[in-house]
């Protein structure tokens, strides 16, 4: 009898805990439903319609938006631009972030230096764009003048008006602006590596490179995976900097998919078509991330 009563209490306790857990996650679930799941589903639905900002009603048009997108002769060019922009930006950010993290980890760097190194991350995109346009102006830009002096640029030419170099400028600016995030994460990870491992390696006569290769790098692997995924997603969808500096030019050589989406939404007001481009971009990112994670796990095994 007593045992049954105790069991009953135990069941009640578990039920209450489960109920409490459910109640606690309700706000998060609601948030995700309203701000993530609903917009994503609605976006996918819109991509199969002729929805436009100029008319309230729309109708189902099956795959017409996707057919239009894949028959757009400039779509492949924009995909290529997106890949170049994302790949080089992410590689650059991770390498620069890691290099500086190693530097500030090794030296006795104070909070002041670390805060200073974080400044690019808090520079507003608009200010950065204006400064970039100023220093690369063909008439009075200091960077253009340097490049011209080195024979790398025509007289009174701007690197932003030359295909190839416009993208290079954007990538460099983006790397400069975004490296503090990987730097900070790498630095935090480096701090967590057991110092005894380095002492042991030192005793065994391992050199700097061997220590880095065999101790530091393996410890940074998981961090790198997470950083790479985050930076790929953020960079591929990063719109402001390109739009403000080149507007996608010259000749569309810096137009990437987010600019194409913006043009479809607020240029020709074709919401349905814009949704189809964002679905393709979303799928593309999803595939990239899954492929990257799978590949890394496979390598681990």
């Amino acid at each position, binding site marked *: 009898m007593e045992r049954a009563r105790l069991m009953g209490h135990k069941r009640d306790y578990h039920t*209450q805990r489960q*109920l*409490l857990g459910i*109640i*606690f996650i*309700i*706000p998060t679930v*609601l948030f995700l439903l309203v701000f993530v799941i609903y917009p994503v589903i609605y976006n996918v639905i819109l991509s199969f319609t002729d929805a*436009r*900002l*100029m008319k309230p009603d729309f109708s189902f048009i099956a795959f017409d938006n996707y057919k239009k997108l894949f028959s757009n002769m*400039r779509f492949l060019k924009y995909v290529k631009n997106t890949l170049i922009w994302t790949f080089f930006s992410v590689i650059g950010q991770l390498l620069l972030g890691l290099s500086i993290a190693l530097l500030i980890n090794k030296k006795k760097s104070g909070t002041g230096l670390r805060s200073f190194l974080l400044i690019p991350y808090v520079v507003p995109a608009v200010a950065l764009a204006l400064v970039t346009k100023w220093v690369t*102006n*063909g*008439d009075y830009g200091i960077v*253009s003048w340097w490049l011209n002096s080195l024979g790398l640029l*025509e*007289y*009174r*030419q*701007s690197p*932003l*008006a030359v*295909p190839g170099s416009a993208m290079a400028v954007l990538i460099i600016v983006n790397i400069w602006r975004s490296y503090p995030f990987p730097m900070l994460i790498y630095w935090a990870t480096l701090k967590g590596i057991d110092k005894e491992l380095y002492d042991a390696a030192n005793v065994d006569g391992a050199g700097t490179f061997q220590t880095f290769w065999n101790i530091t790098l393996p410890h940074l692997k998981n961090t790198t995976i997470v950083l790479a995924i985050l930076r790929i997603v953020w960079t591929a969808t990063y719109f402001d900097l390109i739009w403000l500096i*080149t*507007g*996608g*030019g*010259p*000749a*569309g050589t810096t*137009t990437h998919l987010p600019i194409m989406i913006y*043009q479809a939404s*607020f*240029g*020709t*007001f*074709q919401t349905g078509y814009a949704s189809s481009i964002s679905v393709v971009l979303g799928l593309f990112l999803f595939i990239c991330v899954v492929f990257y994670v799978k590949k890394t796990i496979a390598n681990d095994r």
Partner: protein
Amino acid sequence: MFKKMVVLVLLLVVGAMVFAGGNSEDTVVEEKDTSQKIVIWTNLTADAQAVVLRKQFTEVAQEMDVDFEMVTISFGDMYTKLATAVESGTVPDIMHTNFSGTAYLYSQDMLSPMDDVIADLGKDDFIASYLHVLNAEGKTWGLPDWALHTSVWYRKDLFEKYDIDIPTDWDEFMAAAEKLTIDNDGDGKTDIYGFPVALNATHVAAQTFYEFLYSAGVTTVDPETGEYTFGSQKETAEEVLDYMMELYHNVSPKSSIEWAWSEYRNALVEGTVAMTLDMGAVILMSQSNNPEMLENLGCFDLPGPDGHKAASFGSGYAFVASNSGDSDQIKLKKEFLTRLYTKERAAERALSRPMFAFPSLYSAVATYRDDPKVALFGEQIDTITDAFENNNWYWYGMENGLSQLSSQIESTTFFGETLQSVALGMESTEDAIEYIDQQLQEQVALIQ
């Protein structure tokens, strides 16, 4: 303890939902209580313009004993803001916007016709071509405020020094630009370029192209019937583009394919180009950056290919009133606008951007001319007002009056991307015109 926690969390969730859902209701009630408040949006093109508008709105609001709220919107954000406002039903009571913005709001059925206000103010006092552009379905959907006209702004001192007459056709224009592409110190580097072909993809490329197209008689739609005509004029359009590219390769800085308004204006003011297409804003820039250049600046109309110029590219601003609210509210908005149209106020608004903006009332033009800010430019004012009164001038896509097509041309970059591709040798003229035609046809189909 457990029950208290459950109750607390539930209260938080329900509270959040109530607040989120109840917000719009509160706004409606508040709006009803403040029905005498007029919300005005204006596209901010210059600080001086916003200062004058705010001053005049304050004066009129005091005269009428109403409140107003002025919101300035940067030009780059205009369509994004308008589209979301239309979607959410929060269009302002009055908007001060360009003709494309007016066309967009008209296409959304958001505007009140202004014919009664125009009649009250005296239709004959409005410059007729300003009214034409705001016309659709036999009604005028905005009160023209000021207009701007594209001219070739040039260095009078250089024309004099090199003994160059004002060009009267495209061959002469090319010859003048070549003569003005100068290497002053003989170091093999060009110090002054004859004419920059500004092709920044956002706005500027299409504006440059259309000035040349209109000069050669090519239009997007027929000015009389509104039928799409660009497709049947592709051959002429190709010739126009070839001419522009010849200018670009011979007499223009290479970086001009990325130049927007500020770059080409600055180049003329700083003396690194001898001529440029502009709507007169070079004057304000010269006044602030290089006042010594002011007396050297003059303007003439870009000639037609063989001397005859079919039309010019121009634009302007208008006040529009939304059709939301009951008849009393619409009357209130119209009264507010009527009070803004004294000749002094109309001139003052245009003078907030001297030589860029020209008032829409004949009576205000006289006041405008007498102002010290434009005293130096009597001759240029004659050239420009003559063009407004005696020539055809259009805004892209609005050759037959208000059309949504203009906002789609303005807010997209396909013109810029295509023209830049030709300039960089990545695309042929023929392919570029074909692509532009295809894109324009698609835009036309979208608005039908």
